[in-house]
């Protein structure tokens, strides 16, 4: 069991996603899908940022993994001592960027299939949207469920084309050309 935190001072969701991609590159695209879980967690001190937690049950020993990441991601801080790890272990908060079933559900699917095909325990609707098991979800290419009270929850919202994840891949930056 190898669980460690990778802190690259990600100040927003886009930076956190970038960090996850870099972790993918290091950890190897040739491994079996669902080999590891990566979640991102808000750590406030000393500056608010998102820290990635890597959980790789069948992976290399912690020392080996730490050395590998330290070598390949020199600008990131790899540690076993982060509040993010406790949060990920307790499954109280954090968003899942890599998780079992992700590639199966990141497509046009249904509420029922998401629970069957992935680690997601429940799909919930924003602002009182009630969901039926057969309701279609467009999760094409991006779904980031969250840990909440030990359960994995995917929050969805209504959009022009139907139900989509509440957290959209492209966050709207401020003070940019919209």
């Amino acid at each position: 069991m190898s669980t460690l935190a990778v802190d690259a001072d990600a100040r927003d969701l886009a930076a956190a996603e970038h960090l996850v991609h870099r972790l993918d590159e290091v950890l190897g695209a040739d491994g079996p899908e669902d080999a590891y879980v990566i979640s991102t967690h808000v750590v406030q001190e000393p500056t608010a940022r998102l820290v990635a937690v890597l959980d790789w049950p069948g992976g290399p020993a912690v020392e080996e993994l730490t050395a590998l990441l330290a070598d390949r991601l020199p600008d990131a801080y790899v540690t076993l001592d982060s509040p993010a790890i406790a949060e990920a272990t307790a499954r109280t908060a954090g968003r899942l960027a890599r998780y079992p079933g992700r590639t199966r559900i990141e497509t046009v699917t249904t509420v029922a299939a998401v629970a069957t095909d992935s680690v997601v325990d429940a799909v919930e609707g924003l602002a009182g949207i009630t969901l039926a098991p057969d309701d279609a979800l467009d999760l094409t290419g991006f779904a980031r469920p969250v840990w909440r009270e030990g359960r994995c929850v995917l929050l969805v919202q209504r959009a022009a084309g139907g139900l989509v994840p509440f957290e959209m891949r492209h966050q709207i930056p401020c003070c940019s050309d919209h």
Partner: protein
Amino acid sequence: MSHEHPHSHSHGHDHSHAGHTHSHEVDEITLAASSDASDSDLRPAEVTRRNLLRAAGIAGAVTAGMAGMTGVTPAMAEAATVATTKGGNRATIRHWLAGDHHIHTQHSSDAMYRVIDQAQHGAAYGLDWLVITDHGGATHAKLGVDLVNPDIVAARKVLKDTLIFQGLEWNIPAAEHGTVFVAPGAHEVAVLKQFENDYDGSVKGASGNTPQNEALAVAGIQWLGKQVDKRRVADALFLANHPARNGIDSPHEVRAWRDADPRIAVGWEGAPGHQAAGLPAGYGPGSARGYYGNGPGPNSFPGYPAESYRSWGGFDWFTSTVGGLWDSLLAEGKPWSISANSDSHVNWGTTSRRPDGSDSASFNANGRYGDPVYAGSLNTTAGDFWPGYYSRTHVGTTERSYGAVMKGLRIGRVWVDHGALVKSVDVRVVSSDGGSESLGGTLKAKRGSRISLVVTIAAQDVPNWSQFIPSLNRVDVIRGAVDPTYVTDRDTWKAPDTKVIEQTDTSGRTGTFQLRYDLGRVEEAFYVRVRGTDANRSQPGYLGASVDPAGPAIDVVGDADPWVDLWFYTNPVWVVPTR
């Protein structure tokens, strides 16, 4: 477009404080608060008193006539007698002046229009006042804040009936953006420039969510107050912009801003700009209405739910949620005003574009983009409306002047609407003992006296800028108990007692009509506010149907046509019982 409508009914009670007798104590306060005397002119005891008054945000207010909304203070809530000083210069409203305090120009890196482009459109679309608010930042602090001023001065000359303020969009340290603006005068640029250089979150690298940065925001607001005390500028105001958009304006920060200097920090955008952003792709940008499409980030306040990141009926969740953060402030008796603005950068359907070569390098070098040029095509992917085209902030004033608009905002004589939903709204709370108060006011009524709410509405009878005459189909009355001590946790965002108490079907009503509501006998302090809608889209409020059975509906990302979802909101009126 002027919204003058002489009131035939009596406003005599507005002047009911005129005969108020000041105690000896008040005279000392007046002396200590006097901005004519510098600290060195005062005896040590007077300096101490002045510092206390400054801490309470009163210094300068007494003599400068800067008192704003009083809300309900702890002393008033105790209500032994009417021992408080009066709450402001509550003269008769002679004008309702429509305006917009959030407008960008070519001096913002994400915008493009000249000052005169924005100003003459705003004037043509019926605005009486507007504030130019280019983004704070290194380039603006160095160049833009100076460069924009001659353009504003020139626009004032061209548009003699339009009040054009210079302001800036402050990157509030540790938080969102906000409008900061000052009264025109010899030092308007100097004050804004110094403020930006010393207190802008971008200039100072102070955007992170730290106690130090939060303190810098408070210091900035207090510094503005001092510029008014020193008469460097005649007036200054701060209103928070798109406050709930990214969840980074925590409740305790909002309370800290207001308490920093309540004369300066007076409110927030009840409705953000970018109202065209949710128009469906093909016809519009296909984004989220108001560009409220994000999720929580590392600086977001963890206590806000996911629903707070979307607009509801075009309004910010802090304001649109009955019993939410706005009501939480009002239930504390804290004055806090709302506004509705365009946040115009690049407008939906615009036929112009930036000229060739206007890239970020040239912007940084020149402090502005080149003047826009005719594009020869229609831009349907832009998410904003011209000032006055869709969003309006109506301010009740005694006269048509810069000072009167700022005073009206501070007093809280404000209602806002979208799509010209109504022609006018007058809200009055009347007591059986003879008192009466209007928007932003605090009615002091004898305990046990009977209170009524009188809402006078002139239905819209001319088309809006989408060429239809909107229908006001429902009016809601919202009421909440006031207890200045109920908040023990400064991060509270709920007002447990506030709810919708009346819903009135107003469909088919034309002309000017009056809605009267019996609010019962006053035993405890409370406030009321009013909301109205075309009733096209509604859902139970975030805090449940028992609080708000048919509030605004959460906006659908990529499918939110703002013209078929219209609302107006008014500021509150407070009522406190006295013996």
